[in-house]
């Protein structure tokens, strides 16, 4: 069963059409990598899925629930969109940790704020917060940051900051975890530790969408690849199909060039 279904998504900024007609679906537990040159619309696609941009056309379904339909005003209201965002997690290129909180606080804060909306918050507050804290400890430990819990973001390396950001996104238990070029802002020697963490996340039920320029990584981790060009999905399939036997000329040119770089 498809956990995510996107149909005919389109988005313009002024006169520039950034997404033209995007449709795809994703199976639960699969990893999808979105590739393509700069300006092809990859990041905008992720931002539309996370409702940081509002698409002009198209629909988004998660677990068969219609989250967004550009033609149905009831699905685009800001108040409801906030809850819908929780189906998705997003790890940013530039981390965007909250500088005034420690690594642990960064991971706990969003969960604590959300817990306030639970019906029996006042009664169960202590227990809820204990669970949130335990979960945050575990996540940071998984990220290899058990020793760094009390550090503020500026005291951490870029790779460590990105791992905290991944833990923060995981703490919300999203259905689909998205990565927007998670290693592009890192020094080359730090990309490895972040890619390794993402690779370890794969498995079980975890569904992920990764926008990246790391070709070898994408080929290794992905169940499916989407190659985008100029707002369209130019090519899609398994890594073998897309990397080794691309059908379109643009995909051929793109992959032969990126192979040269490696």
């Amino acid at each position, binding site marked *: 069963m498809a956990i995510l279904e996107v149909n005919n998504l389109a988005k313009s900024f002024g006169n520039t059409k950034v997404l033209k007609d995007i449709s795809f679906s994703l199976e639960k537990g699969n990893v999808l990598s979105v590739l393509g040159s700069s300006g092809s619309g990859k990041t905008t696609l992720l931002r539309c899925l*996370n*409702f*940081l941009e509002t698409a002009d056309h198209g629909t988004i379904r998660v677990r068969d629930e219609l989250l967004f339909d550009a033609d149905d005003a009831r699905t685009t209201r800001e108040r409801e969109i*906030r*809850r819908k*965002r*929780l189906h*998705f*997690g*997003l790890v*940013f290129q*530039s981390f*965007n*940790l*909250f*500088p*005034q909180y420690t690594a642990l606080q960064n991971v706990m*804060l*969003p969960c604590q*704020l*959300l817990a306030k909306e639970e019906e029996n918050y006042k009664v169960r507050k202590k227990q809820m917060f204990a669970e949130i804290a335990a979960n945050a400890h575990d996540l940071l430990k998984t990220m290899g940051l058990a020793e760094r819990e009390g550090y*503020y*973001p*500026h005291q951490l390396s870029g790779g460590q900051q990105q791992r905290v950001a991944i833990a*923060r*996104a995981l703490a*919300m238990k999203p259905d689909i975890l998205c990565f927007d070029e998670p290693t592009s802002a890192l020094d080359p020697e730090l990309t490895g530790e972040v890619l390794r963490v993402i690779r370890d996340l794969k498995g079980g039920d975890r569904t992920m969408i990764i926008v990246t320029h790391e070709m070898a990584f994408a080929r290794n981790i992905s169940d499916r690849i989407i190659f985008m060009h100029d707002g369209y999905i130019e090519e899609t399939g398994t890594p073998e199909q897309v990397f080794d036997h691309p059908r379109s000329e643009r995909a051929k040119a793109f992959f032969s060039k990126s192979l040269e770089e490696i």
Partner: protein
Amino acid sequence: MALIMEQMPIVLRSLNVGFLQTLKLFIVTLIGALPLGLVISFGSMSKVSPLRWLTRFVIWVVRGTPLMIQLLIIYYFPGLVLKKPIWGGGEAGRFLAASVSFILNYACYFAEIYRGGIQSISKGQTEAGLVLGMTRGQIFFRVTLLQMIKRIVPPISNEIITLVKDTSLARIIALQEIIWAGQAFLKGSQGISGAIWPLFFTAVYYLLFSGLLTIILGGLERKLDYFK
């Protein structure tokens, strides 16, 4: 020197009264201008363009004219032109008019500092909050506000120190603050005439008070030093 020692108790009593007036104006201005500035800064960033342009026009006028003229206009204009001397001629009325002028003037300066502070917070902070399911209010109060405060503390401190000294402008509408009190002995007051030193001695009050403020504001700055 002996003469100065003799005059000292009278002069100090008078300067203290003047300084109390200075201090009152300083505190009232801060209490009024710090929150009003935030309202004005939101107005100047509003998506409603008439409101935005009106606010920016007011900021332009207030920052573009001397505070001294604003004091004269706010105090004298209602009686002169509208024939409604709303402030009254007494000390309380002069203080009220001075407070209104100072609050308006400083709120506009604060508003621009706030706006700079708000706009300097990267959009990524807000987006991260949104993606993590926070409301706009939670994002403002739990994420961006403290970062903004950290950034505006140094420029606001500057304005606050300037305000201490600017209060002396209020004597143009005969508000008897400390410089007025010091100057009175030049001409003659309470049996002391032609005494120059009280006027210069007011500088000691300003120095001590701004020194105290510098320590307090520096402490606040250091307190926010734990993050970057």
